[in-house]
């Protein structure tokens, strides 16, 4: 019985953790991105959308929201991403900048045109707009 309760709680937690959205400044020209756009932006394969220079923003590597984003959106394991950014270092490409918390990430996005990040859906406020949500 205890195991069943644990599994139910875990399922609820994973379901909640999976409800991430990608957001930008409410005045941003960014809108309706595709999943490929999001992946390309966070891997820095693409740096512009509609002539707007994009600034991808990450949470710290230890943050569970980032882990969720990398697993469910980028579909990459941490080791795979580390390999990727090591290769990119040779080409002069750096990983997305880091904000230490969701609040910091939101504040950054609100003040920087072209900034884009991921947060839990229930953290979206009126200064932000959702530019991509995972429909699964």
């Amino acid at each position, binding site marked *: 019985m205890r195991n069943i309760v644990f599994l139910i709680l875990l399922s609820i937690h994973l379901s909640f953790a999976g409800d991430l959205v990608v957001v930008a400044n409410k005045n941003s020209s960014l809108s309706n991105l595709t999943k*490929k756009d999001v992946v*390309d932006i966070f891997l820095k*394969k*693409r*740096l*512009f959308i509609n*002539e707007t*220079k994009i600034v991808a923003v990450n949470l710290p590597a230890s943050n569970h929201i980032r882990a969720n984003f990398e697993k469910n959106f980028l579909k990459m394991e941490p*080791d795979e991403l*580390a*390999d990727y*950014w*090591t*290769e990119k*270092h*040779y080409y*002069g490409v*750096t*990983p997305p900048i*880091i904000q230490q918390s969701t609040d910091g990430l939101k504040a950054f996005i609100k003040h920087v045109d072209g900034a884009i990040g991921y947060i839990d859906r229930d953290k979206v406020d009126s200064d932000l707009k959702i530019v991509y949500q995972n429909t699964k």
Partner: protein
Amino acid sequence: MGKLFASLVIFVCSLFASEENYTLGQGYDIKNTPMKIGGYISAESYKEKASSSYSMEDIALLVYGDLTPRISVMLELEAAGFYNRSYGIGNSESFNPDFAVERGYVDYMVNDSINLRVGKFNTPAGFWNAMPINILRQTTSNPWLAMNIFPRFTTGTMLNGLIDDDTYEYAVFIQKTPDLDKRYKNIDASDFVGGELKRSFSEHLVIGIAGGEFKNAGDSNEICRYFNLSGRYRNGGLEILSEWAKSFDLYRDAAFPIGNGHKDASYIQAAYRIVDKNYAIFRNEFYHDSQTKDKGTINTIGWNYKPRPAISLKAEYQFNSNTDRNSAIMSLSVLF
């Protein structure tokens, strides 16, 4: 130059030794600037029938960053053959602290489709030439193709970018000036023009075609044209790389005693992650130089252990059709 480089490395490392956010293989942030600094080293041992050697093959410094949202710079200084100790034929010891500009360029990015690059950069031709340092490759050795068909570096102007999102990747370039730094060049070229087009057929498969024409700076009568076809398949722990290239040496002077020649070469390499951090590699290659009459095949089997993404320990054995050239190679490379 060597002392300057060493002083610079020590100075920089001392400044950033306490950098909390440093990740090995991703460079140091230079505080209060948009720049990063990093580098790489490669130590190798090489043994064939008649000789063997141990070397600190490469020591290099990377400095790069975005000066503005659209302008970025890259500088790579490298000493090739920094230290070498050879035994057997040519028993010798050498030390080369001569740091050369391996790459040095400025990028102006209009958008993802239009990037203007000026300076010295990797010649866009195939996949191997885009990852010319040990740590990024699966083997210590290079295929014959990568070192003998076209100049590895170009000093000039290049236009490159993505088309149709990132389905296509193109590059066209022209060189009309002397090389920014001629040291360590495989081919000393001038008046170089060329380009490349790569297409992604899926997230796993990319096919490319490249070509160009250059003058041999050491022989004003010689013009060389080359073509390169390349393909890469990556899926999970499997990577397959293959390239085929052919070059023609054309002489304007019909009376030139050597006459026209050609080179052609190909390779196919498979790397598979056997267990976590461990890759097994097999490469088959063919090469032919009509002027030197050098022709053969090389089969390489190797192992690449990567305890961390920026550290690679490799061992390989090459079976050459000229058995005197069979060789065992080991290396340790680190990107920092």
